[in-house]
């Protein structure tokens, strides 16, 4: 991406035009994608203007009349909205702290394992659930935790009492965290495995000569060496605190846990697609709030990451 701006004379308009003509092939090849970005990314962004309009089905998103800030006035008086925002921050803040270390632990353990072939098999197993949708995972989890599912059968065999996992609002958030680790820890560990593989082996050899134990080497060499990666991954994960986990919560949701599952994205969905009478203007106002807050978080996260010498937006696929 290096571009030597220095030393070049300032391009004149005519020269720029000539350059554009010279590179017309490059612009042409990107044209379909740019049109796509405009039609399916930027036009919907412009559609956020509906937050200041009253939606009329006949007039559509562009023709509806502007009516000022009334949706935002309603929004900031809506206790369910504030609940949803707080719940999102709480669930995803807890998720960040409680589920984040598992990938690191997994990578450290896998790294210590000496059996090469078996390690491969384990890694395929650990990373596999990442590629299944939350629809599938939720179906499997619901089955395993159901009344006559695997977990309750095991509890019964050990003389315990049946636990209602799925319909218990107290267990919903812990289950969200556990299934997150179950599905994602293996995949997230890959980046740490790669960081560990990049550590200079001489450090370990020197430690061996000094008679360092395995534990010492892990604490004093491996972990400090991958600390920059850990920091960056943590900050980037923190940047997603508003939006993380909608797929998961949506599919694990059921009537019994509605009270604790209403995150901001769930609230937006329910207000928009599940209500008797939908006010698209109001929905858009919530959407706009979400997008702006999310942008703020992401920009902060990326700025910090770049200051720390990392690259921005890593792992943003999700």
């Amino acid at each position: 991406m290096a571009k030597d701006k220095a030393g070049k004379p300032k391009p004149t308009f005519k020269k720029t035009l000539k350059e554009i003509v010279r590179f017309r092939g490059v612009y042409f090849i990107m044209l379909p994608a740019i049109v796509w970005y405009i039609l399916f990314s930027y036009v919907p962004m412009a559609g956020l203007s509906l937050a200041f309009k009253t939606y009329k089905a006949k007039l559509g998103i562009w023709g509806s009349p502007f009516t000022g800030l009334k949706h935002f006035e309603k929004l900031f008086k809506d206790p369910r909205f504030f609940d949803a925002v707080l719940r999102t921050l709480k669930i995803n803040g807890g998720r960040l702290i409680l589920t984040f270390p598992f990938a690191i632990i997994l990578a450290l353990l896998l790294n210590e394992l000496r059996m090469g072939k078996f390690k491969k098999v384990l890694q395929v197993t650990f990373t596999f659930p990442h590629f299944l949708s939350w629809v599938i995972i939720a179906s499997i989890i619901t089955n395993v935790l159901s009344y006559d599912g695997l977990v309750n059968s095991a509890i019964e065999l050990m003389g315990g009492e049946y636990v209602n996992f799925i319909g218990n609002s107290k267990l919903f958030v812990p289950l969200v965290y556990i299934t997150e680790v179950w599905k994602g820890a293996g995949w997230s560990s890959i980046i740490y495995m790669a960081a560990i593989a990049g550590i200079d082996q001489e450090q370990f050899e020197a430690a061996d000569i000094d008679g360092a134990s395995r534990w010492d080497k892990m604490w004093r060499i491996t972990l400090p060496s991958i600390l920059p990666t850990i920091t960056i991954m943590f900050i980037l994960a923190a940047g997603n605190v508003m939006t993380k986990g909608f797929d998961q919560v949506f599919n694990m949701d059921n009537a019994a846990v509605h009270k604790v599952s209403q995150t901001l994205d769930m609230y937006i969905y329910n207000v928009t697609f599940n209500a008797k009478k939908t006010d698209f203007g109001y929905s858009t106002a919530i959407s706009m709030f979400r997008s702006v807050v999310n942008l703020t978080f992401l920009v902060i996260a990326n700025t910090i990451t770049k200051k720390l010498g990392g690259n921005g937006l890593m792992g943003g696929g999700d």
Partner: protein
Amino acid sequence: MSKKPKNYKMRFQVADGVILAVLVAFALLIILPFINVVAISLTTPKAYADTPLLLFPKVFTWENYETLFQDGRIGIGFRTSGKFLLMAMPMNMFLTTTVAYGLSRTGYPGRGLILKFVVFTMLFSGGIVPLYLTIKSYGLIGNMWGVALSEGINTFYMIIMLNFFQSLPESLVESAKLDGAGEYKILWKIVLPLSKPVIATVFLYYLVDRWNEWYNAMIMVRDTQNTPLQLVLRNIVLDSQNLDNIMTESVELFTFSAGIKMGAVVVTVIPVMCIYPFLQKYFTKGIMLGAVK
């Protein structure tokens, strides 16, 4: 001195054992639910009710799958998902490859601006409500084309490809340009043949994403004859689960047995299971290439 190495080795073996045990336990936690799901789908409801910890079907039957396919929705799911892959994948690959190639070239005016224009969409989006209304204003609601178009480019995957293209020697493109080759020709004849691993990675990411599509389809396509497989699964398993919670037992309601539901899970997982273990290295490759510089 002669004893110390022995102790040293002993301690290693205990540690190895503990590490192995923890890792195997986690692997079993992942594998056992899948085995359980398969076993339930291959046995009778009675055998399932009678056997706690069902991991192997003692009473074997295909009955659940027969009922599942007779219901017809799974067939619709496979057909819709198959058609959806055929519409979306070529578009995904074309749009992603072309823009990644264009951005990998340097020295033309506006490159930085176009890159910013693209990366900004990773930071900010309208969200689902404006997207839905925009797609509606284009008249694309009600069929899978709207879904496919709304997911035309995953910018993160585009960056993976862009980073790879940038690592190729620039002289290759330059010399082809001197020979008078056009941009499409350079991309097709020179860049793509050298980029097979990253093309495979991004192709597989898109493939899995499109296979796992349900949310946009749920919102944009409300047509029971046009439901992708994941959504069919959701309707069969999760919605009936919700009904179980709400309805009292006195209300007669047709819900599938656990065996049929788990059969639906199995047929949805199998395609991913068939490709993932063999192509794992391509899947993991992308994670290292995905940074925005």
